């Protein structure tokens, strides 16, 4: 059982987290024309790296969406950072 650092709550048991996606995929502006290839790439393509990775996770209990850096082989957690621009009250981590 792993411990993931929620940027707001601090370290919590992995059961409280949900993997969301790889970061860096911006939703295309769908009011304009988008090729089927670009849309499929946005929807489906992954880097799926072996080793250090950056991923978007959700802390289910506080619903914080954040970027976590970890190693997909050793499971070491390297850090986490909120996706929020404004930080009215800094969390425990």
């Amino acid at each position, binding site marked *: 059982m792993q411990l993931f650092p929620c940027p707001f*709550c601090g370290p*919590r*048991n992995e059961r409280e987290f949900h993997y969301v996606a790889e970061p860096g995929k911006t939703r295309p502006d769908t009011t304009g024309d988008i090729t089927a290839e670009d849309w499929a790439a946005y929807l489906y393509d992954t880097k799926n790296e072996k080793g250090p990775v950056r991923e978007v996770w959700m802390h289910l209990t506080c619903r914080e969406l954040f970027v976590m850096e970890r190693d997909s082989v050793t499971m070491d957690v390297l850090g986490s950072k909120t996706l929020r621009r404004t930080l009215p009250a800094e969390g425990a981590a």
Partner: protein
Amino acid sequence: MRDDSQSWAPPPDHSQPLHGAGVTVTRILPVRQTLISAPDILTRQPAALGWPDVATGDRYSLCLRRDRVLEINGPERAAGWHDGQAISDITDGLIVFEIAGAAALALIQRGTEISERQPSRSVQRLGFGTELMLYRWEDRLRLHAPRADGPALWHRLKAHLDLMG
């Protein structure tokens, strides 16, 4: 069509406390529970409690998220978006149990990974298969859980008390 209704025991009676070795679990009924969300809610309510902060008295608020608190027995507030805050009455949405006794934390540790040595800004966590808001209140623990999960949670707490002997 097959009737599996007998599979399901009627919901437990919460009105009688549960007793175990060194623990008592009681249902308590706050007059009001209010969800308040705002970008600056933790500035507006800096006293909102995290773990293992200790609540006292009747009226306090709990830090749930970066931008959300649960106000216990606060003033009546109009639901909706007012004054830069989103407000909902959730009094009947959350069932509240109080756990007293020396083994209170040991009971909770049956259902969730928690330690007094590991503080957390939020009181929300997963435990016993449901969402809990768990915090210290005076010399006890209190937890709030979704109302419809109350029977299952009660059942699990009872099972653990029986095992703890």
